[in-house]
């Protein structure tokens, strides 16, 4: 049984981990880019950002003061039991958000869209968002928090099957060029692409692709994996680097997630995570033990299942996760 207080405490800790410590996979990606980036201004920006991450970890202060829209992704094991149920979990996450906002401190970013009411705690109507997913045969819950800016670097377009790969490439470039100028997308970034699904799911998949996969991780479909690498290369050949300065460091990695879609359409979304790619995960086991990490492991084989049935995990490993 996983109790309320364990969840709230763990969520407070991942809020701090995300805000302060850059994920190692992303850091490595940017360090590699700083080695090959030839644009002197762009390279200056990358090296300064690395200094900034060091300062954040040393001082235990947020790496970026724009908290973005802090939110959660929760994966619940099918055999997990929660002391206060699902609404208790939601209450724990809302409470942890408010407490972490004060304690770290985070900028209270969340306001009412019309009245601009600010509770100074990043909690409000429909905020923080919580996305849910499930995992068969395990009894843990994974909670990931993502702090991502919310104003630039994302776009949606309804493409059609006849638009083909050209259409995908063109819209990918359009989004990077439009938001890359002056660095509004805070690039170089992990670029997530959602393809297919219904319109709203196209956006959800693209955002999750950007925020919940690590640098170097490939889609299990070999042809999609190839397209990811092709788009990454294309993005890094625009001639634009960090802050929209001359250079090539634009795409730290490109991740594509797909969903079956309307037979007549090929909706697409593009999402740029940022130079402060803030994510942190905790796994809370049935006995209350917490394991912290930066890799969300959100897209499991079960998440990407193709049809009614799905491959059952090896029974001997079923509780090890």
């Amino acid at each position, binding site marked *: 049984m996983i109790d309320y207080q364990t969840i709230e405490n763990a969520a407070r800790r991942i809020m701090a981990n995300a805000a302060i410590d850059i994920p190692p996979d992303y850091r490595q990606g940017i360090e590699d880019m700083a080695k090959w980036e030839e644009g002197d201004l762009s390279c200056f920006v990358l090296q300064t950002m690395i200094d*900034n991450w060091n300062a954040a970890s040393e001082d235990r202060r947020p790496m970026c003061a724009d908290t973005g829209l802090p939110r959660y992704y929760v994966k619940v094991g099918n055999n997990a039991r929660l002391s206060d149920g699902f609404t208790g979990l939601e209450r724990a996450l809302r409470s942890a958000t408010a407490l972490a906002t004060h304690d*770290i401190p985070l*900028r209270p970013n969340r306001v009412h869209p019309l009245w601009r009411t*600010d509770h100074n705690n990043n909690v409000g109507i429909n905020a923080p968002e919580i996305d849910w997913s499930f995992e068969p045969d395990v009894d843990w819950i994974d909670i990931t928090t993502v702090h991502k800016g919310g104003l630039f670097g994302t776009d949606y377009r309804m*493409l*059609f099957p006849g638009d083909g790969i050209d*259409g995908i490439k063109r819209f990918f470039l359009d989004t990077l060029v439009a938001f890359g*100028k002056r660095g509004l997308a805070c690039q170089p970034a992990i670029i997530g692409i959602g393809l297919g699904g219904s319109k709203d799911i196209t956006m959800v998949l693209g955002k999750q692709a950007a925020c919940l996969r690590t640098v170097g991780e490939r889609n299990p479909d070999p042809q999609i994996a190839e397209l990811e690498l092709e788009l990454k290369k294309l993005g890094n050949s*625009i001639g634009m680097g960090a802050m929209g300065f001359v250079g090539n460091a634009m795409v730290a990695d490109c991740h594509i997630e797909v969903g079956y879609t309307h037979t007549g359409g090929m909706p697409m979304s593009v999402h740029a995570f940022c130079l*402060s790619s803030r994510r942190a995960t905790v796994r809370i086991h049935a006995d209350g033990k917490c394991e912290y990490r930066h890799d969300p492991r959100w897209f499991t084989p079960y998440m990407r299942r193709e049809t009614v049935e799905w491959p059952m995990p090896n029974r001997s490993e079923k509780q090890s996760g």
Partner: protein
Amino acid sequence: MADAKSQRKTVRLKVPVEAQDLADLEIGSVVYLDGVIYTGREGVYKKVLEQGAALPAGISELSNANFHCSPAAAVEADGSYSVGGVTATASFRFSKWMADWLALSRAKIIIGKGGMSAADYRDILVPAGAIYLTTVGYGTGALLGRGIKDVRAVHWLEELGNAQAMWIFEVENFGPFLVESDVRGNSLFEQQGRLINANLEKLYRGLKAPALSRYGETDDRKDELI
């Protein structure tokens, strides 16, 4: 590139700045600030310029650097403030208030994210003798947070909330920033953008346009998009 940082010309300025401090600054130079700076964005501009609230007494003498920012800061139970990090917000959105703001506040340095348009520099900042410094990254929140030594005061905190209030910071070695617009209105972003634009046609060559267009690709609402 081995060390792009040491190659850049670096300048340290004392705020409030004098006109001669800014005269020789070149776009692309790195700047660090010492002295007092204040935050101000749409909340403060509306309050002062549209609702006619008076500027905090003595603010123009204390500082002439306006940071487009909201800090990651909290008010403690004893009334003190803890400031974690600070990062800028995109400045182009504040264009409509800048002329009146510069006239009233006598600010000479605008610090923000992404710069403003070349027309805004020409028509608003240059006549006011003001330059624009951009933050780096974006978001060297921790490095900038280190540079904040004290919170002198916070105005309109209750009314505008943490993010929109006017924070007055005492700063030391506060940076890095890049000179985006100098006193003549030369813009680093514009100069870099021109160089990048030269490559775009080649980049798109051979990629056919999608079947369905969108408004934005045409501005004539009478056009069909197919």
